């Protein structure tokens, strides 16, 4: 077997592993999945939409300066499997979010968990704990 034949076999094997798109919309590559940031702030909007839902949140720092973050979640179909509803958050709610930040340093991220005003902590779909 030549090197190119061996490489070809490897390619075929790799592609044989996944028959379907793992992500409906896009991969998680843009987020730093090894890093977690906690945001404590006030919800400015909760968007129960496709292809993703979003939490828009104002986060004050210790000096009182407010930074705004856009946090991406799964789709409504995925989120409902973690106990989310369209009404789980609303404007003005105080919440604590644990997120994976964008790698490009912009104020955005991917939700890990959200602690709701009623004390419940929800994940971000199956496999995204809790």
């Amino acid at each position, binding site marked *: 077997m030549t090197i190119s034949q061996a490489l070809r076999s490897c*390619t*075929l094997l790799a*592609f*044989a592993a*996944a*028959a*379907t*798109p*793992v*992500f*409906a*919309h*896009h*991969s998680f*590559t*843009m987020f*730093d999945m090894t890093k977690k940031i906690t945001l404590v702030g006030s919800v400015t909007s909760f*968007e129960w*939409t*496709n*292809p*993703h839902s*979003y939490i*828009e949140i*104002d986060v004050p720092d210790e000096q009182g300066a*407010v930074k*705004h*973050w*856009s946090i*991406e979640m799964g*789709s*409504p*179909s*995925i989120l*409902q499997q973690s106990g989310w509803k369209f009404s789980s958050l609303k404007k003005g709610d105080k919440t604590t979010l644990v997120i994976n930040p*964008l*790698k*490009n340093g*912009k*104020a*955005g991220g991917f939700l890990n968990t959200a602690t709701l005003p009623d004390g419940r902590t929800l994940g971000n779909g*199956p496999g995204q704990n809790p």
Partner: protein
Amino acid sequence: MKISRLCGFAFLLLVGWNVMAQTPPDLTGVWGVYRGGRGADPKLAPPPAGPLVLKPEYAKPYEARRALEAEASKRGEQLATAGAQCIPYGVPTMMSVAIYPVEFIQTPKQITIISEAFSEVRRVYMNVPQSKPDDVAPGYYGRSVGRWDGDTLVVDTIGIKPSIPGYRGMPHSEKMHVTERIKLVAPDYLHDQITIEDPVVLEKPVTYTLAYKRMPNYEMVEFVCDNNREYIDEKGIVRLQVHDK
């Protein structure tokens, strides 16, 4: 008298058996992706896919694109995809997208299949001839006709637009022909064995199988892509639009 009764009983049994054998199974309902996993019954899990072997002139650019995708991923970037732009997947990819379910609505003349992801709809017209390729406008779903082969639904699809990425992103021509054999392998488990033929692009047909598990009482969630904040930048990279104040 006794013999005639016996014959009558045997006749009824035979008729009943024939009716049972000829009555197709009802696939109506919602089906979730079933991947099997450790300890799963091998009869229910999808069998391994066959190799995807492209003709050399198509294999080279295909593998080059895969290499570029892998390099971008190492840099923490994703190259543009149709999905990231909310463009639907079409046939056959729509039959299994991430963990989204599909719904079958079966009537004698038509079987309608709806994928929750992107709300894609395909219609399988039963027991009618397939059109001539020249009569099918190329699209995402082409034209699908179906028939029952015993307990197996056989679906024949032509007319998929070549610009739509195929199975695993493979290129395909207007001559792509998709044959599906859809069968209940257990009362609540469904397999869709998909064979793609393309005399222009493929060295040989490729076959893979999708497995589903019934989701009783599941109500499909709407999926209208009206808040797509992912965009493609000038370098062809997928980016998230954040809402700065």
